[in-house]
């Protein structure tokens, strides 16, 4: 009898705990399915947005579908990629540009889109190579890099921005200070420049000298100012000496004033580019003091404010983008790095140290209202950039935000010491932010920008129009063009190379021009030549030329590396290399050819055997 009350209590506790547990699970399950529904794009359905993520030290651009988070394409830019046949051989114009401008790797940080009326028009995407001071342009009709520019007079091309609203220039910040001439060891004499690049000609039109390290860039929406955060006004050369001052600056460059000064010949020409010295050209540069070592700078979609993130200070500095006066400096959290926007007057700032995104109301913060913080959400972990759809343009969508985190820690199954990067998709359509999904990528996206699929999709080509000197079917040839030179014009179509064999001599330079004469989309063929360091890919209609040494005497089977058809494995041919000396002729290779239409002994009459 005495045990009964105890049993009753114990049973009640167990039942209660079980109920709570079940309910908890139910709630979390339904939250999960709600989030899953928001990012689920069924097979065959298309995403709503293209997200372009910089590839960081992969030197490329990742194209990700939003909301699904599916990695759709990598656009190689500063690094050759055999799989795409990009910059793989010495004749390739992009490879030549890469080699001539600093190397076949890069560190891409900030993708920016060409704009018309403050909105992306789908023409170009630019991306910087911080390491080698370069700027690349990607054609969005073909999703391929079409120009690579070495920026003179600067090292470390970091922040870049499009001059709104109609892409007048691409602004590129030179992060690392340099001596103006020769080898100077005292860093006090070093200086940096902000470059203004003509988007069509891909030429630097002028540069403005700024002391310190020029970091992130944005522009006012009316084309008047470029804004760059600047740290290390101390001009120190090590970390300790870079954080002495209490305040560094946002450098606002008056673009029309700078253009005027350049037109008046007030630039000092260096490496063919006029450089404006702000001291001799008052009105061109305004330094707006902000807490030391700031990082991000982002202009609100309506163009009213430029918001500098404190990084070491828990604040953001709100600057009037017309008067250049500081209007507020609200606290948002630890380690604010970048800010993006929705369509309802809210800002979202990444907090590196707090590993959070903080949502705050711009008007309330400007007015000093105490309740300007709207919401916070944890991200995983140590967020760098963040970007809401359209937050970098004049009409944000206010639906999704991507958090680009620096560390992933326990977010994915362990894959050794080099962990993947972690991006998170957050629903920002409501008052509270909602975590929807995460997706990993190779190293290391820094920043992202978006384009609506409805705008870009109609502009994208899926086959190439053959160039004038493309090889035409029926016009293939193998010609000796010199004592040590052979030209081969080749075509590809399912499932054969024409010619399917050719003969050269040891010591020959072979110039191979190949056209993929397919006309339907996605019928890509490869050309891989063993032991010659050659593998290229050709999309339908594309022509590539490559020159290579014939190599050692022997038989080399070239074959298709891009699965194309039921006879893909059979799609191959031979390069026959004769010895240089002597009269040895390889066995009559013509006779071995063309077994088509003949019954080949030993080949079973049924079954493909694939």
């Amino acid at each position, binding site marked *: 009898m005495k045990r009964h009350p105890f049993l009753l209590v114990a049973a009640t506790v167990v039942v209660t705990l079980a109920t709570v547990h079940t309910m908890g699970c139910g709630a979390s399950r339904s939250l999960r399915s709600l989030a899953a529904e928001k990012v689920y794009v069924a097979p065959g359905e298309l995403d709503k947005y293209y997200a372009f993520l910089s590839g960081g030290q992969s030197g490329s651009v990742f194209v990700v579908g939003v909301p699904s988070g599916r990695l759709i394409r990598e656009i190689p830019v500063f690094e050759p990629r055999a799989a795409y046949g990009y910059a793989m051989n010495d004749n390739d114009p992009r490879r030549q540009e890469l080699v001539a401008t600093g190397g076949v790797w890069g560190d891409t940080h900030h993708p920016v889109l060409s704009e018309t009326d403050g909105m992306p028009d789908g023409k170009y995407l630019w991306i910087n190579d911080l390491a080698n001071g370069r700027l690349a342009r990607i054609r969005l009709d073909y999703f391929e890099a079409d120009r690579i520019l070495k920026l003179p007079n600067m090292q470390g091309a970091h922040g870049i921005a499009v001059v709104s609203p109609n892409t007048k220039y691409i602004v590129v910040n030179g992060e690392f200070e340099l001596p103006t001439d020769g080898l100077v060891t005292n860093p006090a004499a070093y200086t940096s420049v902000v470059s203004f690049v003509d988007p069509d000609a891909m030429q630097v039109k002028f540069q403005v000298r700024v002391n310190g390290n020029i970091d992130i860039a944005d522009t006012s929406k009316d084309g008047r100012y470029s804004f760059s955060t600047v740290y290390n006004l101390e001009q120190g050369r090590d970390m300790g000496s870079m954080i002495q001052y209490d305040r560094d600056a946002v450098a606002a460059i008056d673009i029309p004033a700078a253009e005027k000064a350049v037109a008046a010949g007030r630039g000092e020409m260096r490496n063919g580019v006029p450089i404006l010295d702000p001291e001799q050209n008052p009105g061109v540069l305004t330094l707006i003091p902000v807490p030391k070592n700031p990082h991000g700078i982002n202009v609100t979609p309506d163009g009213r404010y430029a918001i500098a993130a404190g990084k070491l200070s828990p604040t953001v500095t709100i600057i009037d983008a017309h008067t250049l006066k500081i209007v507020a400096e609200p606290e948002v959290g630890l380690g604010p790095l970048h800010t993006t926007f929705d369509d309802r007057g809210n800002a979202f700032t990444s907090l590196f140290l707090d590993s959070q995104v903080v949502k705050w109301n711009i008007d309330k913060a400007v007015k000093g209202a105490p309740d300007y913080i709207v919401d916070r959400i944890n991200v995983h972990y140590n967020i760098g950039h963040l970007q809401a759809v359209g937050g970098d343009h004049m009409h944000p969508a206010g639906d999704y935000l991507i958090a680009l985190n620096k560390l992933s820690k326990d977010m994915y199954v362990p894959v050794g010491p080099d962990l993947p990067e972690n991006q998170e998709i957050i629903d920002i359509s409501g008052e509270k932010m909602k975590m929807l999904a995460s997706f990993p990528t190779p190293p290391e996206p820094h920043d992202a920008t978006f384009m609506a699929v409805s705008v870009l999709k109609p502009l994208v080509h899926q086959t190439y129009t053959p160039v004038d000197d493309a090889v035409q079917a029926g016009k293939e040839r193998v010609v000796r063009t010199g004592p040590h030179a052979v030209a081969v014009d080749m075509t590809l*179509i*399912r499932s054969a190379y024409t010619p399917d064999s050719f003969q050269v001599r040891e010591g020959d330079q072979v110039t191979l021009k190949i056209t993929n004469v*397919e*006309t*339907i*989309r996605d019928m890509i063929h490869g050309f891989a030549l063993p032991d010659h360091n050659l593998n290229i890919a050709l999309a339908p209609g594309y022509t590539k030329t490559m020159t290579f040494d014939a190599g050692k005497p022997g038989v080399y089977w070239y074959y298709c590396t891009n699965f194309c*058809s*039921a*006879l893909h494995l*059979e799609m191959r041919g031979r390069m026959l290399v004769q010895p240089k000396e002597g009269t040895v002729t390889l066995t009559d290779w013509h006779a071995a050819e063309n077994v*088509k*239409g003949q*019954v080949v002994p030993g080949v079973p009459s*049924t*079954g*493909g055997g694939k």
Partner: protein
Amino acid sequence: MRARVMYIAAAAFAAAALVVPLWGFSMSAPQYPDETLHLQVERNGIVGDVHEIETLQHYVGVHFPTEIPELKWATRAIVASVGLLALGALVGSGAAAHVYRVLCAAALVTFLLASAGAVQARLYQVGHDRDPHAPLRGMRDFTPPLVGPARVGNFTVWSFPHAGAMMLLAAAALSVAGSRKARA
């Protein structure tokens, strides 16, 4: 009067058939989403996605008829029909004219039936006269219907009368209608 109008219209329809495609084929397969392949048989030969279809054919050993002498004959027959129909509008309304129009209509209907037969014969040939050394095994001979779908490998092939055939059909119908004896 009524017969004359019908014969003028019939001649016009027959003439129009000379400048538009006569017969059409479409081919669709799962790996060609939103890009169904089309062929049109015109007076001068076959046009459309010829390149792509020729590329595909070698897998199944189907011969693409590049020389089609029937088309020359068909062109001549259409030109002749235009002449005969136009004449049918001019011959007046007597008993002899009526006989002429009946013969004219009969000739046109015969031509159309013969053409249908020729197309069907070609379709049979395409499905049966195949390269025995074609790479893809397990393909059975096939006969696409004159009008309608047929399954060929992973493709669904549709055969259908194009604008030209419809015009000729209209011309034939008008000539038949115009050859009926006018009510007294």
